[in-house]
């Protein structure tokens, strides 16, 4: 059963990472560009989330095919940390718009929170399981 669960974790992380990218680029993106071409601060939060999503996707893809136990632990840790970063970017690290009714508050931020928490949990639980197994071995 242990061999079967390894790619499953990587696939879950990959799906979440791709969801982050697709979401930020479509239904859960920041507020749009203004008529005069200027952008709000939430635009940069969206850009940051996109970048993190790309990195997370690459790491998750490697995780799917990686066989070395130590590498797997490292990759799970990395993606879990990226999940925490996703949670922190909108609102905490990068300001969003002033009105709570704007799309960056009502859709982008809760979406990022959900995906970020999921990434952190899946990566964190996988890492913890592997460390415990290592300790008891």
């Amino acid at each position, binding site marked *: *059963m242990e061999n079967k669960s390894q790619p499953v974790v990587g696939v879950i992380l990959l799906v979440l990472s791709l969801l982050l990218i697709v979401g930020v680029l479509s239904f859960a993106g920041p*507020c749009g560009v*203004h*008529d005069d071409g200027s952008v*709000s601060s*939430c635009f940069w939060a969206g850009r940051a989330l996109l970048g993190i999503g790309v990195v997370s996707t690459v790491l998750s893809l490697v995780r799917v095919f990686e066989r070395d136990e130590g590498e797997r632990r490292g990759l799970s840790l990395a993606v879990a940390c990226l999940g925490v970063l996703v949670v922190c970017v909108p609102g905490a690290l990068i300001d*969003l*718009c*002033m*009105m*709570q*009714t*704007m799309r960056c*508050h*009502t*859709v982008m*931020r*809760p*979406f990022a*929170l*959900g995906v970020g928490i999921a990434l952190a949990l899946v990566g964190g639980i996988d890492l913890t399981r592997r460390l415990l197994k290592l300790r008891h071995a």
Partner: protein
Amino acid sequence: MNLKTYPLNSLRRHPARTAGLCVLVALLCSAVLGGSLVIGSLQNGLASLEARMGADILVAPKSASTTTNLEDILINGIPGYFYMDKSYVDKVAQVEGVERVSPQYYLASVKAGCCSMPVQIIGIDPQTDFTIQPWIDHSYGKELQRGEVAVGANITGQVGSTIRFYGRDCTIVAKLDNTGTALDNAAFCDVQTITDLIEGSVEQGIAVLTNNDPNNIVSTVQVKVDPDHNVQDVTDYINLHVRGVKAVRSKAMTTGVASSMAGISRVVGILVAVVWVLAVTVLFVALWVLGRQRTKEFAVLRVLGAPSNAVARVLVTENLIVSAVGALAGIAVALLAMLGFSGALEQALGLPFLLPSVPSMAIWALLTLAMALAVGVLTSAFAARRIAKVDASQILRDE
């Protein structure tokens, strides 16, 4: 390994089956709790709106196309402004049956450092106001002074920071409690401040006023009717005898909201009921089929010396674990979704929407958990009863 640990072991050995059942229960609980919270939030929002309306009658200039503009501002959250001469305040106050009056002033900002979205600015007379002032008292406890604003819950601004309207800097002195209404998107100030802002708007070339002197205008007159008089009669009298204004019962504005809310609540309620019936049916059938597949397993336990009620307890315990885990997952998903996306939901519904308090949500969550556990026990009770009647010797002989 003994009969106490047997149920957990069974669940672990069949992860796909266990996960499937948990997901089913989670879906059931998410739907029930989510639907209940949506309906509860709509009811809360309506109650909040009715409380915020405060006045029995709202008097606005006839030229402001009356009710529509008022609804836009107070209910739909579309910033706007209109003005009439200040003398109308006294005229309305003198109408028989009017207990007290208070003027309000509306202004919409163009850009206030908030993503080019206009913000509704509402000016009140702290001495006479009886709709907004009590709400400000609750959060701030003092009268607003010149240059000070209290902002609604949806405006991102720290207390003590500055917000700029029409070239005038105002200090945020209070952030008001969430009401789930359009007033959460507004900023509130006193008469002097809004007069300054109106002057500022004129300076910036925004033609909010036509011929009026900024010091002699009001937007609406809020009216409280004497309890001994009929509100409709007073409304009709004002409309007949006070020229140039239109009087509207605040109840008339909330009635439309109430019926929309009732319609949506009904739809949500039906959807929740459908999901509930489907999920419980599928759960029942799944547990029944699984129970039948495990008849031999239970017969062997009986042969080894397990009494029939202990065997039934194994099945019920398995289902309780699945129900508990599924329920907790479903409740977590529903709560996170509601807390995270309540803003988006409010905008999509276009109605006042105020999440219940934390204790209320906790009670709803506990009720949902209890319901899931009850469903788990009841659906397994049928299978458990069948097991209790199993003729172990016949089952094993058939091999």
